């Protein structure tokens, strides 16, 4: 085991230690790979390790330091990258057989930006196939295991990105969130997990699932690390017409300003949704008390349309996905069926062989929802529900700076526990409305379940482009709870 324990250091501390010469970036990369060597056989957070890229990046950091240059904010910080983001020199499989041998031909903007400030690309993280799922059980390459309990799921779809940070294999990671795919695994693994405002981070280079919902965001073990990573990846991109030109402020500067004077709203009607565990419900009330004790003005608000979020999401998401996944047709790249009789046979067999069952289910759902004669009843209605959810949030943010809900209705579940798709979908009931509205939200660890010992996540939701206030509230909560969750697996390794 290397002398450096990444799980004990924040990303900022890794960078500062390298700047101070306490260890080198190369040693940080070695520490990451050593921990992966020790744990990833059990956890399976990574689909592909990229030591050549990571050590080349580390050497650039070490040379920059040797030359006396000031190091960028994430210099030498080991990072995991969800396997739906393109990076030259890596395969981008999206957890699918369809793209098993697909080599990236260009760089995802957010990944490029993260690496441009010195982060080390340790490897590509496991995920539910094409980000369809909440457990990573839909990965074609086998599931990721939760470092807190290897019998349990880490959440998904960005389960590998959450697990590698929770297990201290990397300091930070990037995931993508279409209906909760960053925040839900963040909650289930006790990590800090942020979905930025739609348009805050360029989507160029992340393989599209739901184009109007997708957003890339960071995982970390602290709010400060997540803020650092957000600063690196945010901002307008000429390659993404939906990226926003809204100025990128400092997300780290105001983190120590506390919660005094913040208007915090508990979303009461969502807490009362069926299926929300009593302990989860209580954790949100406890969080509200914490905010009140910090000097925040705490109140209650309802988001009545949000209960339609799940239904609307399972029309809009699959509709967009069915279109975005059409390009995987066996013609130009990806899996191609052997000996096709004609082009139709080529299409049908390549797709049937390359896609897993959940992917096929979503494509069929979306294709049906957009079909002539059904469009108004499904897609049209879903867009109306979406508009109402947007209006609900808008009204709520006239009264409050941030809103509180659970991130998930329950803690991490066991493999195979949710065998029918619908109960699996219910796991995202709190996160989905935020994607439909386009707001930003973060999941922060708020405690451990008294029976299972698994982490619980608090979802804090912010207004459009109000990441600075959102993260300030999250940092105040983090500091007040003093909760620094370390999974037993990692603890045992360290002792």
């Amino acid at each position, binding site marked *: 085991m290397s002398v450096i324990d990444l799980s004990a250091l924040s990303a900022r501390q890794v960078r500062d230690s390298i700047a101070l010469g306490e260890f080198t970036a190369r040693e940080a990369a070695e520490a990451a790979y050593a921990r992966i060597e020790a744990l990833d056989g059990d956890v399976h957070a990574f689909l592909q390790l990229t030591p050549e890229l990571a050590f080349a990046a580390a050497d650039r950091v070490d040379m920059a330091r040797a030359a006396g240059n000031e190091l960028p904010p994430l210099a030498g910080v080991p990072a995991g990258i969800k396997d739906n983001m393109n990076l030259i020199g890596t395969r981008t499989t999206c957890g699918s057989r369809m793209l098993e041998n697909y080599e990236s031909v260009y760089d995802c903007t957010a990944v490029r930006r993260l690496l441009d400030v010195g982060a080390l690309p340790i490897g590509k993280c496991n995920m539910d196939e094409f980000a369809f799922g909440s457990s990573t059980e839909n990965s074609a390459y086998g599931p990721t295991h939760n470092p807190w309990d290897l019998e349990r799921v880490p959440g998904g779809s960005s389960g590998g990105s959450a697990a590698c940070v929770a297990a201290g294999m990397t300091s930070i990671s990037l995931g993508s969130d279409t209906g909760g795919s960053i925040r839900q695994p963040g909650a289930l693994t006790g990590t800090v997990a942020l979905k930025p405002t739609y348009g805050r981070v360029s989507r160029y280079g992340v393989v599209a699932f739901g*184009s109007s919902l997708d957003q890339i965001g960071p995982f970390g073990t602290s709010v400060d690390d997540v803020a650092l990573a957000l600063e690196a990846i945010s901002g307008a991109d000429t390659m993404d017409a939906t990226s926003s030109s809204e100025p990128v402020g400092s997300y780290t500067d105001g983190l120590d300003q506390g919660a005094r004077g913040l208007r915090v709203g508990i979303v009461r009607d969502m807490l009362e949704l069926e299926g929300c565990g009593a302990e989860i419900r209580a954790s949100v009330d406890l969080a509200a008390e914490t905010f009140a004790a910090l000097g925040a003005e705490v109140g209650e608000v309802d988001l009545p349309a949000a209960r339609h979020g799940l239904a609307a999401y399972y029309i809009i998401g699959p509709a967009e996905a069915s279109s975005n996944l059409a390009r995987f*047709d066996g013609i130009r790249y990806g899996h191609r069926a052997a000996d096709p009789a004609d082009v139709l046979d080529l299409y049908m067999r390549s797709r049937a062989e390359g896609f897993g069952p959940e992917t096929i289910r979503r494509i069929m759902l979306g294709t049906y929802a*957009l079909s002539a004669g059904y469009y108004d009843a499904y897609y049209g209605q879903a867009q109306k529900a979406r508009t109402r959810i947007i209006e609900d949030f808008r009204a709520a943010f006239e009264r409050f700076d941030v809103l509180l809900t659970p991130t998930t209705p329950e803690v991490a579940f066991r493999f195979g526990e949710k065998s029918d798709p619908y109960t699996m979908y219910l796991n995202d009931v709190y996160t989905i409305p935020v994607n439909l509205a386009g707001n930003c939200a973060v999941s922060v660890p708020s405690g451990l379940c008294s029976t299972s010992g698994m982490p619980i996540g608090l979802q804090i939701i912010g207004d459009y482009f109000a990441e600075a206030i959102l993260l300030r509230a999250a940092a105040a909560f983090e500091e007040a709870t003093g909760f620094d969750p370390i999974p037993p697996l990692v603890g045992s390794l360290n002792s």
Partner: protein
Amino acid sequence: MAKDRLTEVLIRYEAVIGLEIHTEITAVNTKMFCGCPVAFGGEPNTRVCPVCLGMPGALPVPNEAAIEWTVIAGLATECDIALWSQFHRKQYFYPDMPKDYQISQYDLPFCSGGFVDIEVDGDGVAERADLGGALPFVGPEAVPEDGGYRARIGITRIHLEEDTGKMVHVGGSEGRIAGATHSLVDFNRAGTPLMELVSEPDIRTPEEARRFAQKLRSIWLALGVSDCSMEEGSMRVDANVSVRLRGATELGTKSEVKNMNSFKSLHDAIAYEIVRQADLLDAGGRVEQETRHWDAGAKRTSGLRSKEEAHDYRYFPEPDMVPFSFELAWIDALAEKLPELPDARRDRYIAEFGLPKHDAAALAAEHALACYFEEAVALTGADRARPVANWMLGDLAAHLNAAGIEIVASRVTAAMLAELVGLIEDGTISGKQAKEVFAEAASTGDAPGAIVEARGMKQVSDTSAIEAVVRSVIDAHPDEAASYRGGKVGLAGFFVGQVMREMRGQGNPAVVNEVVRRLLE
């Protein structure tokens, strides 16, 4: 097909025709949603990038110049410009379409509700069997001076989309898919901005369809939005054709005819289709709704598929782009900047230069011709516009046609033609000499003045010099001179010819004529 067969059919049946015209916006430097250059041909798959190849994770970014060109095209055809518009995805699988959906427009096109006026004259008028001798007040309006008529063709919409790649079928005949062993795809064209114009079904004859397509082409060329090459496929015209008995109010079943690579093909394909449908109906059969392919060699259309599949394109709003909203002031500014359009230019040529209507229309319709004409006239003077036009539509056109080149590639530039006309008009050379000078200039590219100089071709107009030659010719032919004086005045031509031969063609014909007659009297 025999023309009278079409006319016979059109006496009993009314044809209802609408056109769909796809035009690549070649005025832009880059493709519709990426930075790849827009050009024709090239090594396959060399003008491509992750975006236009539909690689995973790539996103479209709209080319604002292409949108502006589409709005300009709409303004030039009297369309309403949408203040709020967006792209939709049109979804179907085909190997030439990288994303397996085409970014196009659906219920919110950039332009809608326009029109273009066409004029039909000459032989094409006969196709309008319903007009007969009595021109109706409503609908086509008579243009009495040339026996033709004018008609207004509605434009339903003009929208913007991305072009597909090109398939090359290998192993079959003539590159067709039938019998091919495999197919190759070239994505160089994929993502080229493509305007689709849909006309109202206001067209009634093949000739009207041709005139409408030609008129649009001349407008697009005047705007500069596209090079409009039907051969290279930058302008592609499809026709929806149906027929119904005259007097019927219900529309017949239509077929969609494709693959017309010239205006003549467009006319002939529609004419064929009208007769084919009428024959079917006459025989008690019925017309299938289908897509038919024009074979210019065999001069017939054939069904592409035995059974037309009903396509469900599953249109939905393109989520990778935000909708567009346009300021009225921006639209007004574009309208202000519209260049002179072909009809206005034709009318100006008639008013300003006194050109005959036919010549004016011919020059005004083709932007490159108009530019050439105006440049030459500017150099040689408005009073010489008519000879410039005559030369352009005569010798120059014949030369370009024979050489198979466009006017922009002509070795005889506008400046050279202006010089040539100047040499004729100021009497330096005769019209006959000018033809020789033109031929030499066209083959060598030398300036007319230099050619005249080098060949010593200057025309002799000096009366005393000509009188000396005429006297010697009369002296040499006393018998003919006597006959002339005896009343055979037709012999004047003989003397003129002898004089011109003596002068090696350099005598001013008008002066020679006058002197011959005077001295013979």
